[in-house]
């Protein structure tokens, strides 16, 4: 796919075309149930017209959620208010909400914080798109969007659908893989919550030997109710398949939802290659608590590329379970921790077979009192010979109020594993800034340039439009950080 076609899948095209066609449906549904109850779980399942097994899965998950304690080993979650979680769901076919509740998921533009509005302005995001990103614009019918997205890949035998439809249309395969082997509801409190209330997300199935030529992107799809809050992504790459999946949004994205608990499950078959890229820039009222995991078979390569820019508290540790000989995982991530932000992010890799390898590169930028914590877990199973792993965590701190920490946990049961861990915490040096200034570049731009250079090894792995926006955001974020 060439750049021009790619652009058509971008949010610009979606926004400008959709309102004139049938893609736009202004029929959000908002439940009258408040808080998270068993009744709400049943209601969601009813509205979605789900098969019994999914309903049972939701109820089982809810029971686990009620029993599981909050994790206490990470950031402070004591202010997380489950009763305030709205639980939007999307009806199939027709609007269910009462009059006045139609479109209830939308924010009013007037309510969107000025800070977010001015950021949109400075990023040069068009008016219509600003409302969209602020959760105050039109909503789109997911099925119509997926239909256009999969046009080019369906002839390859690739299934690319929204998760709700997939449950109905591909029940055998979804039932087999959905929160069974990879991320079961019992994994943690948030995965249990997710199992009960999930809505939206993507289902990708790539048959053996098929190489999907362009990244599957859902850049613009975050505005229908429930999407992005409890969305579920399930990617299955069969033997020798190759696929790249990109989701998220680098522009600031305002939501009233106080919490997001997405789950991503990836099955990388033998000799397959899967790259999952996500950029998150939620508004800072959001607790971002996702569970993302891949099971990687022999000689397969799993790549995670991620950036967490927004939200208040983030807990995110993409996990690769290397179960087959010669499997490889790469985890590349950028965290930006600004005022009031705690980024507790990292990577988990389980080397459960011989000759498996992993590379983890984590870059964080802390300023204005932000906290970035790298939390890593590296496990090498007994009898797994020839394992190699390198971990590199670099942080830049731009003032004395901010903090960067590294908490690597290693559990190595094999004698010959080659494991490297390097960590660095640096400040932007006055000398470097002066050097750039002496070439006519002002101090703010000099700092932004240095920071961009710092994250460049990861940004270069991003699709172009994300990379451009990411660089602009970093530039804005770093303004005023030198005297």
């Amino acid at each position: 796919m060439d750049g021009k076609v790619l652009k058509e899948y971008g949010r610009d095209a979606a926004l400008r075309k959709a309102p004139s066609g049938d893609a736009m449906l202004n029929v959000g549904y908002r439940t009258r149930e408040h808080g998270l109850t068993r009744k709400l779980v049943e209601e969601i399942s009813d509205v979605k017209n789900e098969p019994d097994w999914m309903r049972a899965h939701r109820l089982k998950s809810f029971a686990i959620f009620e029993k599981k304690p909050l994790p206490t080993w990470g950031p402070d979650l004591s202010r997380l208010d489950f009763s305030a979680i709205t639980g939007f769901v999307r009806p199939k076919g027709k609007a269910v909400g009462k009059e006045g509740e139609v479109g209830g998921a939308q924010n009013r533009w007037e309510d969107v914080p000025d800070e977010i509005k001015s950021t949109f302005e400075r990023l040069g995001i068009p008016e219509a798109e600003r409302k969209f990103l602020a959760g105050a614009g039109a909503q789109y019918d997911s099925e119509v969007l997926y239909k256009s997205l999969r046009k080019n890949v369906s002839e390859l035998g690739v299934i690319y659908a929204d998760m709700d439809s997939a449950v109905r249309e591909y029940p055998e395969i979804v039932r087999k893989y959905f929160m069974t082997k990879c991320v079961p509801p019992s994994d943690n409190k948030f995965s249990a919550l997710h199992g009960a209330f999930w809505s939206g997300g993507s289902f990708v199935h790539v048959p053996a030997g098929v190489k999907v030529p362009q990244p599957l992107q859902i850049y613009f799809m975050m505005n229908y109710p429930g999407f992005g809050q409890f969305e579920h992504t399930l990617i299955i790459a069969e033997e020798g398949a190759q696929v790249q999946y990109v989701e998220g949004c680098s522009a600031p994205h305002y939501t009233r939802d106080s919490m997001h608990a997405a789950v991503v499950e990836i099955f990388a078959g033998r000799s397959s290659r899967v790259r999952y890229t996500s950029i998150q820039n939620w508004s800072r009222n959001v607790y971002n608590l996702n569970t993302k995991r891949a099971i990687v078979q022999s000689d397969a390569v799993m790549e995670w590329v991620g950036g967490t820019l927004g939200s208040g508290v983030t807990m995110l540790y993409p996990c690769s379970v290397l179960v087959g000989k010669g499997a490889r995982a790469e985890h590349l991530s950028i965290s930006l921790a600004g005022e009031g932000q705690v980024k507790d992010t990292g990577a988990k890799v389980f080397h459960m077979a011989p000759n498996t390898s992993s590379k983890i590169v984590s870059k964080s930028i802390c300023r204005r009192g932000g906290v970035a914590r790298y939390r890593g877990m590296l496990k090498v199973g007994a009898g797994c010979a020839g394992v190699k792993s390198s971990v590199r965590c670099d942080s830049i701190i731009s003032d004395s109020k901010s903090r960067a920490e590294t908490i690597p946990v290693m559990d190595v049961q094999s004698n010959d594993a080659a494991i490297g861990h390097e960590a660095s915490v640096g400040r932007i040096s006055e000398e470097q800034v002066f050097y750039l200034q002496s070439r006519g570049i002002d101090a703010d731009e000099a700092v932004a340039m240095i920071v961009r250079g710092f994250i460049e090894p990861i940004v270069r792995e991003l699709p172009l439009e994300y990379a451009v926006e990411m660089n602009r955001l970093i530039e804005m974020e770093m303004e005023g950080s030198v005297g």
Partner: protein
Amino acid sequence: MDVKGLNVRAGDVEIIGGIDLAIKPGEVHVIMGQNGSGKTTLLHALAGHPKYSATGSARFCGKDLLSLKPHERARAGLFLAFQHPNEVQGVALSSFLRRAYVASHGKEISVPDFERLLLEKMALLGMDRKFAARGLNEGFSGGEKKRSEMLQLAVLEPKLAMLDELDSGLDVDALSDVSGFLENIRKAGASLLIVTHYSRILRGLKPDAVHVMRGGKIIASGDSRLADKLEEKGYGWIDKSV
């Protein structure tokens, strides 16, 4: 550039105490002096390093230099080639230099046009084009860093280039390259203020004035013969003749 009664302090410590220096367009001035005499501080203070506070007066192309921020001084046409240039990882030399070009010249240039300009200047300096895509000075050897400074000088075309020990760490061949390059810069109309320990780099450049610094002051000024004498007789000779 017209400097009068320049004092430079780092915190409470006075490093430069009362320097006068007048450089006309197209002139080449040389500052010599032993380590610690304040040569580098003088150049850095003129370029606006935040570590120093400077008082006195420094007019540059009609502007009050000391009231300008470092990047404004650069945009006014002042350039400093560092003795130890910084490395900035991940920022490609070409994209950095294009930003600097746009900032200094105050006009846009397309990427292909800039690329052409850059490759032409790199060829003049005998730099491999692969350096353009590398991080700014990232992993460059000492000599490569000096060439990178020369390249930046060539692209930014300042009115006055201050060169801090550009010749240190260069072999004889590289020295003669640099010397020829500087001659061209001068012919194009730029002034040069050169800090050096050795007069070798000056051969062919025919400096208009040579100044000797000690203890933060200029203790002797003369024509190019002064540099030759210093090389021949050492700094001790100055004491006897001053």
